[in-house]
């Protein structure tokens, strides 16, 4: 009897149990530890591959990000903040959509379209309009362009319940091809749009990045307030939790989906504008450079909280620039940095699993006691 019972109820080696009881400080301790370990592994791998010492690797990483800051040269620091600002702005743009459980994977395309509008204005209207008018036109058109690119999948989702993940992804390819065509039209022989001198955001004290950074800082605060304290922010959470509940309490779900995607797309458009009118003064299919996808992870890792997103983006951008410098210094292929960033993101995502679930092993002492 006993023998057969064991056979029929064979326990797996381990099983996964959802846990809700982890205190917040413990969850954060795990995350912090993961970050430390991740940095450690990156340092170790970099040191091994580049045949440099462990300490030297970190110092190269640090100098790659901050330049010769201690000699009073702040350019690289500003550049670092700029890179954070762009990635953060995209993550912020995605967050309201994600909270609504609308999987907007189209930040890349929405930002590209938001970047196309300014470059068209700069080239076509640049010599004709006075500077303040030109800047206003650039801002309005880029916000509208991004919003349109975001709202199209939202309309289809709201009325026809199409899959927004695939839809937004496809919209990326369309945007990329439109940019490619525009560059072909305006690029001349070399297929490059040379920097346009009109409609550039002003440099503050010789600093091209300052305005971008301020704009994104303001957006961060507004987004935090919007999501946490506004009625619309609350509606987004309810629609995200359950559309039926939302309908029951009288929320117009279609309206919320469309409104939220207009905001999401518009903010992506703003990012494109910051890139094109703010720093690049040109555009190409890689202007956003895949950051629209990294931003998805940033939004998730930041738990949809804008301020945590700041930390996460700062971390990832630090790694991206720092490890790339390590690779450059060792005359290595620059893909090395992408591999390292991917590894760290994988670890961070992995640690979320252990925060949300616990693994119970067969015959573990805890279970025996129960």
């Amino acid at each position: 009897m006993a023998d057969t019972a064991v056979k029929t109820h064979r326990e797996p080696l381990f099983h996964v149990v959802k846990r809700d009881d982890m205190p917040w400080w413990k969850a954060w301790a795990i995350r912090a530890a993961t970050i430390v370990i991740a940095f450690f592994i990156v340092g170790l791998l970099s040191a091994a591959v580049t045949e440099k010492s462990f300490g030297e690797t970190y110092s190269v990483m640090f100098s790659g990000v901050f330049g010769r800051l201690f000699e009073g040269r702040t350019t690289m620091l500003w550049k670092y903040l700029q890179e954070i600002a762009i990635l953060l702005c995209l993550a912020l743009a995605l967050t309201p959509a994600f909270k609504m459980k609308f999987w907007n994977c189209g930040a890349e395309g929405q930002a590209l379209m938001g970047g196309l509008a300014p470059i068209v204005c700069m080239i076509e209207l640049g010599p004709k309009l006075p500077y303040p008018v030109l800047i206003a036109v650039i801002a309005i058109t880029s916000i509208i362009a991004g919003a349109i690119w975001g709202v199209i999948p939202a309309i289809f989702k709201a009325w026809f319940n199409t899959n927004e993940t695939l839809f937004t992804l496809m919209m990326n390819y369309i945007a990329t091809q439109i940019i490619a065509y525009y560059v072909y039209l305006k690029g001349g022989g070399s297929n490059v749009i040379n920097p346009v001198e009109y409609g550039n955001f002003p440099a503050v004290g010789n600093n091209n990045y300052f305005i971008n950074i301020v704009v994104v800082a303001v957006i961060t605060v507004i987004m935090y307030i919007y999501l946490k304290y506004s009625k619309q922010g609350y509606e987004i959470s309810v629609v995200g939790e359950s559309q039926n509940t939302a309908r029951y309490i009288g929320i117009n779900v279609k309206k919320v989906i469309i409104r939220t995607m207009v905001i999401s797309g518009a903010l992506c458009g703003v990012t494109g504008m910051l890139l094109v009118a703010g720093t690049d003064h040109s555009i190409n299919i890689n202007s956003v450079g895949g950051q629209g996808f990294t931003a998805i992870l940033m939004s998730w890792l930041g738990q949809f909280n804008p301020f945590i997103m700041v930390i996460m983006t700062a971390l990832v951008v630090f790694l991206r620039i720092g490890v790339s410098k390590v690779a450059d210094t060792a005359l290595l292929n620059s893909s090395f940095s992408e591999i390292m960033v991917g590894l760290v993101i994988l670890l961070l995502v992995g640690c979320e699993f252990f925060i949300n679930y616990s693994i119970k092993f067969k015959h573990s002492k805890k279970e025996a006691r129960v």
Partner: protein
Amino acid sequence: MKKIIALLLAVAMLFCFAGCGTKDTNSDADAAKSDLKVGFIFLHDEQSTYDKNFMDAAKAACDAMGVEYAQKTQIPESQKCYDAAVELIETDGCDIIFADSFGHESFLIDAAKEYPDVEFCHATGTQAHTAGVANFHNAFASIYEGRYLAGVAAGLKLNEMIENKEITAEEAKMGYVGAFTFAEVISGYTSFYLGAKSVCPSVTMDVKFTGSWYDEQKEKEAAQALINGGCVLISQHADSMGAPTACETAGVPNVSYNGSTVAACPNTFIVSSRIDWTPYFKYMIEQVQNGEAIATDWTGTIETGSVVLTDVNEKAAAAGTAETIADVKAKLLDGTINVFDTANWTEKGVKLESYMADVDTDADFAKDTEAIENGVFYESKHRSAPYFDVMIDGITLLDTNFG
């Protein structure tokens, strides 16, 4: 977990100590050299024959001159080029910045305006002589002479095939895989063709364009299409191994570019022309070390050692190729042969007496400079980057790609 962390820490400390030990000796050796530093910006990495050619030269020149250098690879022709230049200056403290791709130019000029104390050198560009930025310089080489010599080797191979009755004289058709229908490529394939024609008068040539400087698959397909179309010898002006490997597979002789591809193509590689950038890199370092100005527009030649040919692969080349090349090279050097001598080619059946070339950069691609003097089209005279873009008779463009 604690044990693992302790272990990792221990390993880390070991690395630190190991580092401390070696670091001192390195820095002593460096200090004895020069404190000048050069920063290189490359479009791709060593996978691309084009960039590898620059990378090898950078190492050779900097090692020979005893200067340090830093590099950034995979830098696209965008704001990223500006960013890379700024990083090389700000973080690495470079005194000279060099970028290797045509589209880098405008972004590099932007950086040059911001850092007037740093010298900026750019290969294949066209804007330095009109930009008016004192610390921005262009450089190129008279690679058409190298391609002419490579063309001679191709012509000799065709002659051998005709003699061996493998093909008739009329079937002596070459194929050429080009990147874009720009002057740089047109000048290249035309000089190659004229070189072949100088020894094999019946030769014709088909040209296909890939629309990319580096696309292995497209280059392979283009080469294969040319072979299928009856081309008995292939050359290319694009930077991957696509065309050479297609030739090796099909058993069709190949005249390569950017360097020897004999290792991958032992049976079909004849010879390759390339620009050796080492002389220019040495020159720019020397000028800065001596506090002298770098030429706004520098053209390397056979004489400066900038235009070179690899060793001839005896297995694939016709007998006596090396000797003939040496002979023609001597004539190029003493001026008895001019590559674009108008006596040797026609456009729509007419010998050209005058040709206005687009030398100065402007939005309208205006034809602004007379290029033909005394019956010779002088390439790379009015600026280092090529401007020969005449579609001469005997060459058929199967397609075009203006990017």
